[in-house]
């Protein structure tokens, strides 16, 4: 990285600010690679398949035909699904953020017994296969079910509730990871100077919190806007979104023209959402005093600590704890329902379905345990890939170039790597089939090789890594780096001992997130042929679609396994997070 023989000056292309000005050639090369490697990865495994698929819809007999736009937009249904997509995603994102902020506070800013368990628990919904969540939700809401009296089955409310169920963890983890490192002294100072708890939150805490909130909100919006199984199972086509319509047009009608037009519309909506989120972030983004979690996190007590003055924010903390407790109970309802149903054997109860997980009964090609191993193996590879690519992207995007063009380039790169979450899995999946037969002239049919599976998962996990690591990198006080440079550290050394050292703190969170996303991924990968070794979500999907109550029970039992596995891994990653010091210099 700092090879002394290289004397090439920093190229203008390096999207860098101060660090590269030192003119160390090795460092310049590092930045070139840091931009080129992720771009090549995204270009090859995302942009190319998507372009291949969309161009199938616009190129007819070798010439460009854009008449599809006029045709698709003249259908009243198109406008309805565009409206429904924006409505569902906006409402669900708003609710997830409103509920997630108190959750982040209670789960990351306060310390209490059992916190680690609850943190892992709220992550479980994020990875459950949508078919399973559909079962868990619908059997609660169906008339005669435990919550049948609410009459929510097949309503927009049920869809929004399920979307919030999935994405609550995204907000809690995204906001909480940053919040727990925020130096509490500014807030304490404000309070000491006579500000009310609310005023302290408004003037000190909220501005600091806006970037991670905007960041999480944009993630949730993308997840909601591309939700597919949830919408179909809970609402059906009357609440169809752009995503479900692309699926129907592609897999059922083979109307590639309509699908291509809708893919472009989806890209536009996602692009607008990302731009808005980026603006909200950029307005507030600034260096923050980060401290160690140990300093920032206070214990949560139900009773006011004796001797503390009134109006110390105790009421706010209790309110947040109350909201969060309610949310956790609501999250548990479908999960408990799932466990209960997995224990149902015929007219009685038992562990039969769990015992069957080791077998290849019901005509499956592999046992659930074998699929679990496959899932773990691919998720490890995917997480490793996502960490490297996402880490590089976050590092590049965290620079603050002086020129306007440089800043734009950085912002553009940031948005670019979010796109995989906002583009239809069907478009990507079918695109893989079109583009990955002997890609780049290599004599390999990647489509059926299984190599693509972890890659496709990594493409989806990269944005999560970026969104987790980036806020931490951006919040690093530039004075810290200036101080290091003044003390004689080379730019490379500053990068290593300041940026990287601080960034590794959020690695545990990023690993957990990326791993969970890879484990649960059931989008593009479901279209990738995996000869004889399906991942767990794919196997669950196959099991649930097979006639026979035993397959169904096994699918539910396998989902419980997936949930427990996820919770365990996420909890382990949380434990591995480095509690080292941050801003106490």
């Amino acid at each position, binding site marked *: 990285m700092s090879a002394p023989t290289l004397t090439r000056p920093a190229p203008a292309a390096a999207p860098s600010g101060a660090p590269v000005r030192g003119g160390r050639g090795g460092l310049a090369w590092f930045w070139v690679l840091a931009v080129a490697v992720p771009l090549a990865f995204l270009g090859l495994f995302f942009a190319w398949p998507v372009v291949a698929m969309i161009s199938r819809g616009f190129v007819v007999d070798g010439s460009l035909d854009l008449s599809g736009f006029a045709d698709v937009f003249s259908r009243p249904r198109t406008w309805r699904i565009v409206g429904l997509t924006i409505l569902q995603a906006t409402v669900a994102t708003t609710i997830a953020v409103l509920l997630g902020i108190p959750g982040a506070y209670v789960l990351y800013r306060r310390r209490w017994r059992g916190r680690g368990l609850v943190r892992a628990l709220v992550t479980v919904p994020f990875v459950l296969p949508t078919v399973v969540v559909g079962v868990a939700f619908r059997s609660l809401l169906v008339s005669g079910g435990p919550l049948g009296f609410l009459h929510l089955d097949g309503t927009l409310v049920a869809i929004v509730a399920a979307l919030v169920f999935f994405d609550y963890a995204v907000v809690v983890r995204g906001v909480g990871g940053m919040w727990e490192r925020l130096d509490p002294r500014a807030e304490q100072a404000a309070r000491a100077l006579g500000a009310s708890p609310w005023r302290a939150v408004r003037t000190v805490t909220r501005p600091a919190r806006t970037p991670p909130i905007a960041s999480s909100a944009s993630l949730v919006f993308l997840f909601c806007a591309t939700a597919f199984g949830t919408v179909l199972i809970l609402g059906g086509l009357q609440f169809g979104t752009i995503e479900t319509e692309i699926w129907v047009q592609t897999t059922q009608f083979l109307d590639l023209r309509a699908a291509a037009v809708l893919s472009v519309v989806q890209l536009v909506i996602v692009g607008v959402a990302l731009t808005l989120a980026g603006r909200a972030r950029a307005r507030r983004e600034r260096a923050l005093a980060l401290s160690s979690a140990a300093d920032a996190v206070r214990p949560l007590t139900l009773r006011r600590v004796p001797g503390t003055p009134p109006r110390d924010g105790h009421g706010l903390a209790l309110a947040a704890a109350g909201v969060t407790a309610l949310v956790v109970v609501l999250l548990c309802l479908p999960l408990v329902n799932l466990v209960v149903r997995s224990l149902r054997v015929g007219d009685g109860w038992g562990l039969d379905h769990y015992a069957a997980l080791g077998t290849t009964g019901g005509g499956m*090609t592999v046992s659930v345990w074998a699929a679990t191993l496959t899932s773990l193996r691919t998720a490890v590879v995917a997480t490793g890939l996502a960490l490297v690519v996402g880490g590089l992207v976050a590092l590049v995007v965290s620079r603050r170039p002086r020129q306007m063009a440089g800043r734009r380039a950085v912002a553009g790169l940031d948005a670019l790597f979010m796109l995989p979450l906002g583009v239809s899995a069907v478009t990507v999946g079918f695109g893989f089939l079109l583009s990955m037969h002997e890609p780049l002239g290599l004599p390999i049919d990647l489509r059926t090789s*299984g190599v693509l599976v972890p890659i496709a998962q990594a493409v989806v996990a990269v944005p999560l890594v970026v969104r987790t690591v980036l806020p931490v990198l951006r919040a690093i006080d530039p004075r810290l780096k200036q101080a290091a440079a003044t003390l004689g550290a080379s730019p490379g050394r500053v990068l290593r001992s300041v940026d990287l050292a601080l960034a590794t703190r959020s690695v545990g969170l990023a690993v957990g997130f990326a791993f969970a996303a890879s484990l649960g991924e059931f989008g593009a990968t479901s279209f990738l042929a995996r000869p004889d070794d399906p991942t767990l979500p794919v196997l669950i999907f196959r099991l649930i679609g097979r*006639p026979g109550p035993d397959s169904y029970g096994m699918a539910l039992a396998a989902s419980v396994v997936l949930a427990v596995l996820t919770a365990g891994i996420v909890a382990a990653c949380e434990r591995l997070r480095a509690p080292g010091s941050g801003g106490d210099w």
Partner: protein
Amino acid sequence: MPKKISVVTTTALVATLAAASLAACSSSDDPAAPAASGGTTSAAPGTVTLVTHDSFALSDGILDDFTAQTGITVKVVQQGDAGALVNQLVLTKDAPLGDATFGIDNTFASRAIDEGVVTSYTSTVPAAADAAQHSVGEGLTAIDYGDVCINVDHAWFTKKKLAEPTSLDDLTDAKYKDLLVVPNAVTSSPGFAFLLATIGAKGDDGWQAYWEALKKNGLKVADGWSDAYFTDFSGGGADGPRPIVLSYASSPPSTVPKDGGPATTGALLDTCFRQTEYAGVLAGAKNPAGAEKLIDFLLSDEVQADIPGSMYMYPVSRAVDIPADWKTYAPLATNPFAVDPAEIAANRSTWLADWSQTVIG
């Protein structure tokens, strides 16, 4: 000191992950190695790739017997439901995903044939004569078939002392208001099969009125078959609220109580649409000879006898026995409704759009 440890822990975590990725990369390359060269090994007589849908299944060891008999290894590639399968085959016909395909049904057969996805092959094994009874056109060989029918929960009707419906028309009777659930015709292939049953029964211009009557009578549309059967249906083991569901003629045997006694559900054989599944050699296959052998094998007694237990369909071959409880609880319809495959191919989009308009709104 704790700081040091924590940094070390993080570094170790990253290093372990990186190492694990590498290890996993190389270990996943092992199974991938023959697969990665799948494009090339298919050319060797040693491997044949079968592209099929998610429901394809055979008992353990059957495909190994094929390898023992012929020396050919079978690689199974499963690509979503029947619709997704056919559409992917159409999209990739210039560089096919494999050599043989199984799972194209009579509702998609015309699209596959018209698009030139499969190439002509006529099997000469004994069961081929039985398969020819289901012929749909050049290039597709029938392997199995079954009926998609309305199922009723006997226990529910006995308890309510209500006579069970028997025909499509009964389902619009006010006696059976709010009792029927069917899967969505657009997103589920049994759902579409039932739409075809009503088109076969009521004609091209009569089915819309029938569905309007169903809707008025409290029809519930679920997303997929499993959703309808296991969540909404009262007889599917989960105590859902509705005692009438669209399912298969082969569903009742799985509702035979464990301690004996008759099945608690039954199929209404005057409400059925017949679904036939076909196999074919893919155009442009690298190993067409192997693909032909595999299709012959799918018609062998060994596979045909396994089909009811593993895929819940009837084998086309009359030479094999079907399970005893199928004879009792899963008889086939004598006169299922039928619609010409060419007509289905021509009208699929229009019908589904009309159906959505009428039923979903």
